[in-house]
């Protein structure tokens, strides 16, 4: 009887975990987190999740899309997708001025962006799985990337590293693989959907 209860609790724990699985998208600004979130939501819900822009810090609040069900062969996975603001160590409103914004608008965006970074870090503890989205045309050895990965390791949260923007000439997946050899790195183009099936396969393996 006791053995049965232990088994029942074990099953309940698994069921509960699966039911409330939260998958977070993390990374520096402009890596393509929201583009990937939109790709996932378009593929499985037929709708977008958030607005994307070339100007950094377009996502300044945590966005959640609940109850996404994905299937691959016999496997099924249900989760809540959490898109987070890009993590940075500096935010200069003058960068937004250069992008053509008015001063008041630029300062407001900078203020909201700082709050977004704080929220993104606070939410780390709530995640069951994290997808780290990196721009594969850029240098992966940045302190922001190392801090994100280091914190996920310390919290023992399963990780997939996505090397995004493989459609661009300067893309270099090998450099990301060399920087984070302990994780599976999947090269994709979230914008065009290139290699997205490999990404879903990796998601099933990790989640």
């Amino acid at each position, binding site marked *: 009887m006791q053995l049965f209860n232990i088994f029942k609790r074990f099953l309940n724990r698994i069921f509960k975990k699966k039911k409330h699985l939260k998958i977070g998208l993390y990374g520096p600004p402009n890596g393509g987190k929201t583009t990937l979130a939109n790709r996932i939501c378009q593929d499985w819900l037929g709708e977008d999740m958030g607005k994307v822009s070339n100007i950094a810090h377009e996502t300044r609040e945590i966005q959640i899309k609940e109850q996404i069900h994905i299937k691959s062969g016999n496997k099924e996975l249900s989760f809540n997708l959490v898109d987070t603001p890009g*993590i*940075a*160590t*500096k*935010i*200069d*409103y003058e960068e937004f001025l250069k992008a053509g914004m008015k001063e008041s608008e630029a*300062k407001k965006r*900078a203020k909201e962006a*700082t*709050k977004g*970074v*704080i929220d993104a*870090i*606070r939410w*780390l503890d709530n995640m069951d799985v994290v997808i780290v989205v990196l721009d594969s045309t850029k*240098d992966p*050895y*940045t*302190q*922001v990337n*190392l*801090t994100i990965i*280091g*914190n996920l*390791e*310390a919290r023992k949260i399963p990780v997939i590293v996505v090397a995004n923007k493989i459609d661009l000439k300067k893309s270099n997946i090998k450099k990301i693989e060399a920087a984070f050899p302990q994780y599976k790195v999947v090269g994709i183009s979230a914008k065009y959907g290139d290699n997205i099936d490999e990404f879903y396969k990796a998601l099933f393996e990790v989640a």
Partner: protein
Amino acid sequence: MIIEFVRYSDIKDLSSLGRLRKLLKMAKDDKIVLLEGRLKPQEEAELIKMNMEEIDDEFKGIEFAIIDAENNESTWNKIRTKLVNIMLGYKPGFTIIGPASIIKEIKQDPHKIELLMKENEERKKNKKKK
């Protein structure tokens, strides 16, 4: 530009938050801090959070980098180094923290670290605004 070396023994009695506050204040005072020892991942995240709370029209944030002295060592060497460090009270690695108004970028790869400074003109422009 001032580069200040901070020994771990100078801040070891402070709480984790107290240490971060002190380092951030030095960066806000336009100093580049070279700290003996490395921050823990949770401290790095906390430093980013505290730094975000300080950002305004004048202070644009920080650049920082952790230099891990043990990175390329074998497991046995890591254990041996750790034991020696504990016995001698030595904190391995370094942490560099500086204001984003002075440091343009810190480039890291497994073999070297490059500290790219802002051009003089750019710095003067930032100071005038202050």
